[in-house]
């Protein structure tokens, strides 16, 4: 197997639309969750979400942009950033050996929602001609392939909240085993359409709004946590063989060291300690490292009662007594739950944190939960944490667990 470098990163997120912005805001614990002011917000029990500030990406041709759902626009813009930051990763590449791997849980939900509004809300049959092309889950990956001329595998993974961790992991496998010389991998999600927000609300997994401070409504690992807050955005990574990145003098931002997956095979929503622990163990095995080498964790940490308690138990099951001493960051507190894009954004945050030698804070941790007795880096970033290896957890409805093992660039 070959070592796989991350040589480019692009982001669109509630924490900003560049790597520098995202790191700065995550480090400062500045939340991207806000009170929604859209017309339909009045129909939401908790009118909050983590919104990305990107309505028109300047680098996307206007003629093309009108064919893109919001999730495709995010993905395309993030891929442009990632390629740009890679210092020429595409130069000289055989396009047949370059692939695209995108995770999304909900695809073009804005487009589909608008279509249903036309059909049912307005009692009109005039569905827009591009509705299918914009709504389909593989639209984002397809546009990235077109944009960059990548002719290898063009894959879309939809495993709910682990989609983009799966996408990155599957891309890593292809590059590590020599099938591909380059992959653009990550995820994108734009789930803040009225229908989607109401559907999530109906499931009773979303947080109640903190009326004093709406931006602090998501509180992972805190006793008073009440659920997740939906977020939107995309994160894309350039993956290539370590030696190729070195040879061309690329800025290596980190290394994908391993990837593990498991399925709970027990319940459609209720998480399983055994299932999550199995995914973490599988990831460590694929990375060829022992649990004692893990020095930081980015938790799935959604802020639901069930997830956080289960995840804490899974971490204890794998890491034993050390679990209480590994810095664990639940960054969804400030960027919300990006569903199919969450794993990719959290992978990026993990790499950036290692590079900056810090543990990102778990914000809004007001009342530590004894059932989640981990080192949760409560409310303030911890500087001077020189972790070499970070585990990034992504768990999902449907029970598809995916875990990435990441190594600092200098290792």
């Amino acid at each position, binding site marked *: 197997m070959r070592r796989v470098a991350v040589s480019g990163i692009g982001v669109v997120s509630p924490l900003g639309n560049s790597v520098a912005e995202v790191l700065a805001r995550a480090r400062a614990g500045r939340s991207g969750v806000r009170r929604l002011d859209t017309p339909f917000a009045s129909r939401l029990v908790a009118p909050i979400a983590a919104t990305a500030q990107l309505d*028109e990406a300047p680098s996307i041709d206007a*003629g093309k942009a*009108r064919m893109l*759902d*919001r999730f495709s626009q995010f993905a395309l813009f993030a891929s442009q950033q990632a390629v740009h930051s890679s210092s020429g990763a595409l130069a000289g590449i055989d396009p047949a050996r370059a692939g695209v791997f995108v995770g999304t849980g909900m695809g073009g939900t804005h487009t589909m929602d*608008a279509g249903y509004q036309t059909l049912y809300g307005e009692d009109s049959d005039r569905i827009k001609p591009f509705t299918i092309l914009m709504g389909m889950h593989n639209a984002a990956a397809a546009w990235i392939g077109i944009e960059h001329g990548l002719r290898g595998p063009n894959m879309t993974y939809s495993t709910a909240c682990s989609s983009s961790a799966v996408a990155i992991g599957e891309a890593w496998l292809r590059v590590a085993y020599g099938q591909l010389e380059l992959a653009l991998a990550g995820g994108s999600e734009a789930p803040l359409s009225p229908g989607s927000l109401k559907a999530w609300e109906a499931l009773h997994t979303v947080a109640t709004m903190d009326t004093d401070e709406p931006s602090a409504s998501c509180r992972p690992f805190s006793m008073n946590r009440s659920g997740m807050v939906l977020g939107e955005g995309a994160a894309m990574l350039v993956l290539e063989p370590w030696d190729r990145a070195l040879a061309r003098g690329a800025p290596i931002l980190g290394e994908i060291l391993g990837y593990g997956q498991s399925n709970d095979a027990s319940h459609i929503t209720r998480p399983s300690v055994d299932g999550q622990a199995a995914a973490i163990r599988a990831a460590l095995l694929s990375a060829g490292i022992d649990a004692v080498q893990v020095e930081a964790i980015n938790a799935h940490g959604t802020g639901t009662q069930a997830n956080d308690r289960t995840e804490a138990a899974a971490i204890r099951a794998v890491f034993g007594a050390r679990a209480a001493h590994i810095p664990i960051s639940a960054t969804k507190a400030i960027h919300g739950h990006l569903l199919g894009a969450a794993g990719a954004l959290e992978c990026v945050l993990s790499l950036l944190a290692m590079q900056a030698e810090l543990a990102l804070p778990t914000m809004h941790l007001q009342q530590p939960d004894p059932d989640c007795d981990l080192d949760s880096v409560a409310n303030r970033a911890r500087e001077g944490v020189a972790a070499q290896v970070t585990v990034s957890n992504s768990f999902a409805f449907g029970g598809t667990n995916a875990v990435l093992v990441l190594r600092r660039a200098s290792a």
Partner: protein
Amino acid sequence: MTTTFERLCAILVKDHKLPLERLSLYAPLDSLGIDSLGTVELLWTVEDVFHLKLPSTPVELATLGDVVRYIDELVAGQGAALTPTLPAAPSLRTT
């Protein structure tokens, strides 16, 4: 009176982001980046703007002049309202 061509140009400038100076009756649709998919979208908007119901039978449209003639024939045949309406605004960017 606004001509069919002028109303068509308004759609192409607004929705297809084409510069007005590139638009002429002789301009091939292909040269404007309007392929078969783009033509489907254009005709969808034409239905709205010209208050027409387009037949489902396929039609060969090579130039903007062809589109203008096609619209004019349909307007004459269907007696559609002659009051122009603005093209529908793209709704890609709800937040």
